[in-house]
C-alpha cells in the first residue's frame, strides 16, 4: 500500500503548529497553553486496547 497523504515533515527550528488537544474530560487546550509551563516532550502514540 502506498502512503495516502504526505503532510510536511517538521524540521528542527520550525515553529510547531499550535494544535488544540482534548483532554479525556473534553476540556480543550492548545499547545501554546501547555508551553507556558515549559518545554514539552510531545509523543504521538500508536497503541492497542
Amino acid at each position, binding site marked *: *500500500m*502506498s*502512503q*495516502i*497523504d*504526505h*503532510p*510536511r*515533515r*517538521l*524540521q*528542527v*527550528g*520550525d*515553529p*510547531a*503548529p*499550535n*494544535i488544540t*488537544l*482534548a*483532554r*479525556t*474530560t*473534553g476540556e480543550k*487546550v492548545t*499547545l*501554546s497553553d*501547555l*508551553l*507556558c*509551563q*515549559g*518545554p*514539552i*516532550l*510531545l*509523543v*504521538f*502514540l*500508536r*497503541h*492497542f*486496547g
Partner: protein
Amino acid sequence: MAKLNPQIEAAGAQIVVVTMGKPAETERFCSERAPGLRCFCDPDAASYRAFGLMRGTNEQLFGPAVWLKGAQVTLGGKFEGLPVGRPVGDPFQMPGVFVLAPDGRVAFAYYSRHAGDYPDDAVILRAVTS
C-alpha cells in the same frame, strides 16, 4: 515513557501524550501505561497530520523491522511495549516524538521508520536537556 517522567520533569519539561483513542480508551491506556502523564485524545489523528506524521505503508506496519522489534521487546522482557488487542484509532497512522522549546519551535523531531520504532530513552533525554 512514564519511567522517564522524573528526569523529564527534573529538566523543567513535561511529557504530553496524544493517542488516537476516544476519551474512555485514552483514559484507560493512560491510567495503565502512562500514569502521571498529561494525556490527550485525538481519534481523528488531525494533530498527527499537523505534525507531518503520515499513514504508514504495509512495510512500515507489518514488515520485518516491526517483527524484529517485537521479538527484541519480548526477549528483553519489556512486555509493556507489545501490541495486545486491537489497534486503537487509525491502524495505519505512524507515531512520532517531538521536543518543543518554550518559544514553540521544534527542538527535536523523530518520525518513526516503522510502527514499532521510537527513539531510545537516552536520545529523548538528550533532546530534552540540551
